[in-house]
């Protein structure tokens, strides 16, 4: 059964409270949020297999810390969309502002437009697919998970990266410290094919290059004179 919620009329607190009240075995699985008008913290902290469709653009931290739920933004999303996501799916039809998917531990974040700077910063296992471009410092200190960029990447991609995998189809303006291009092996093509497929992109895995850590910053270097 579809529930419609007017955010301007009924407010944020009641919305999140209603969504949090959904249990794993809920039958109120479809929610439509109208009039989001750039509100912050829309549909944050969800933890049930429900579908939430936001009709319009949102402010900061949409679907923050999501677990299980599918949140679909039919507009653009402000900074920190799906930050620290644990599982589930978040789809942004438009563009996403800074820090999309920051520190995410799991789940899939799809951005149909472009993402701004610091996309996937400190990511810890999340999969992010951006149909357009990503801004500077994307995947900064990225720990694990996959960032797929179907367009171009800005400056200092993957600076101080750990074990996350970065796939970029277009150009990379510059690579950050300790980030290097790496060989694309069959297993990477498979990971990429699956992610592109799930993200509804028709880009070909073979068109991408892979980037990752040179692992030169992993331990302090000491000149052991003694």
């Amino acid at each position, binding site marked *: 059964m579809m529930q419609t919620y007017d955010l301007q009329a009924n407010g944020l607190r009641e919305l999140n409270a209603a969504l949090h009240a959904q249990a794993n075995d809920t039958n109120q699985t479809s929610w439509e949020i109208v009039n989001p008008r750039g509100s912050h*913290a829309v549909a944050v902290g969800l933890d049930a297999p429900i579908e939430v469709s936001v009709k319009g653009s949102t402010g900061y931290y949409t679907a*923050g*810390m999501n677990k299980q739920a599918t949140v679909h933004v039919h507009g653009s999303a402000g900074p920190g969309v799906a930050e620290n996501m644990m599982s589930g799916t978040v789809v942004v039809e438009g563009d996403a502002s800074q*820090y999309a998917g920051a520190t995410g531990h799991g789940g899939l974040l799809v951005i149909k437009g472009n993402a701004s700077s610091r996309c996937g910063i400190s990511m810890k296992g999340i999969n992010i697919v951006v149909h357009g471009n990503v801004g500077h410092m994307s995947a900064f200190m990225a720990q694990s998970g996959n960032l797929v960029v179907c367009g171009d990447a800005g400056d200092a991609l993957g600076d101080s990266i750990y074990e996350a995998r970065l796939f970029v189809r277009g150009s990379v303006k510059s690579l950050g410290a300790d980030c290097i291009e790496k060989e694309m092996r069959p297993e990477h093509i498979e990971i990429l094919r699956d992610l592109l497929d799930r993200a509804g992109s028709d880009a070909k895995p073979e068109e991408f290059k892979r980037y990752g850590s040179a692992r030169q910053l992993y331990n*302090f270097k000491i000149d*052991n004179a003694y």
Partner: protein
Amino acid sequence: MSVKDIKDKTPPRTMPIQSATFSNPINAEIRRAAATGIYDIRGGGAKRRVPHFDDLLFLGASVSRYPLEGYREKCDTKVTLGTRFAKKPIELDIPITIAGMSFGALSGPAKEALGRGASAAGTSTTTGDGGMTPEERGHSTKLVYQYLPSRYGMNPDDLRKADAIEVVVGQGAKPGGGGMLLGQKISDRVAEMRNLPKGIDQRSACRHPDWTGPDDLEIKILELREITAWEKPIYVKVGGTRPYYDTALAVKAGADVVVLDGMQGGTAATQDVFIEHVGLPTLACIRPAVQALQDLGVHREVQLVVSGGIRTGADVAKAMALGADAVAIGTAALIALGDNDPRWESEYQKLGSTAGAYDDWHEGQDPAGITTQDAELQKRLDPIEAGRHLRNYLSVMTLEAQTIARACGHNNLHNLEPEDLCALTMEAAAMARVPLAGTEWYPGKPGF
């Protein structure tokens, strides 16, 4: 006297003088730096002497102030944190809390001991970088969950399990710096909790990944409140740098509690140059922070927790007299558990240190078994006994603070006030804004 006699006599010589500028410790550090090519990393807080609570004295009772009976008369120690917005504020029996110290920096048994001791004393403990462990949650009746820039182990389930949330902007030992857990301390469990491979150095970011500045912080706090149904108090922890403005901005961003940590505050590991040369002494932080709260009309409504070099009930009482609602302890709690205990002296010597000076906590070889992930060393700390020691120590500090408060005529620790204090030095008088002993004057006092 013959010519021969004069020759035999050694002429008076200039005494060898050590340079105050190029002292032995400085020269040793120059040699160490020259040999290794890396700065010194260590744990603990500033070791240099800075103006501190020792430079303040209580005046006690007099003709115009009558004291309360030392043991019998009531002197309340309870404090409630998070009364501004949180639906479920934290109620503590004593105003001394345990500061955030990470699992990773500390062993599992050490965290357990902190939980046991604090719970027995009716106060809270705090997680740290690296997330919440079940042992810690299980043994702490009141647990504050730190929300740090690294977001290691950050998880909404743990957020909801916490009794309060502390957004860490900075720490007194290293305001503006991140953290470092060297590879040798990364056990399988620590690595897994932090989503990183074993054995590599783990940097903790110095800035939050998804917000910058007070306007963003306000929205971040909104998000945290929405996720936790506005139940939990939200603290904002800052290092002592610009306490007036940081406190005002934290209040503006919606904090329930401001935690202010001065430069003597401990850390698990950072560069020595950072610990010793960045930040304000704790004493210098309190009055400006209280001023900010008063200017905004929220003193006591937004609680102030002060940390950095708190060791005794006198320190607790002094911090509270200057306007703090509560204090937090890190280093002192570790010492109560057994850190730097002379009983391990021979082992400290083997590590090139001595009891009381051992600070290479990042190397994971702590003889006392506290700042280590080594399975054998950890066994040296019995969490039950160590927890009991912490409880005893907390209760002694509380009794000491009560003794002072009663002597000043107060039936509640929170009634201590600056008027109860004087300063021994000009510096302390200026920082604490209390008169130099025997005068009515402090530097900067209006009207002089």
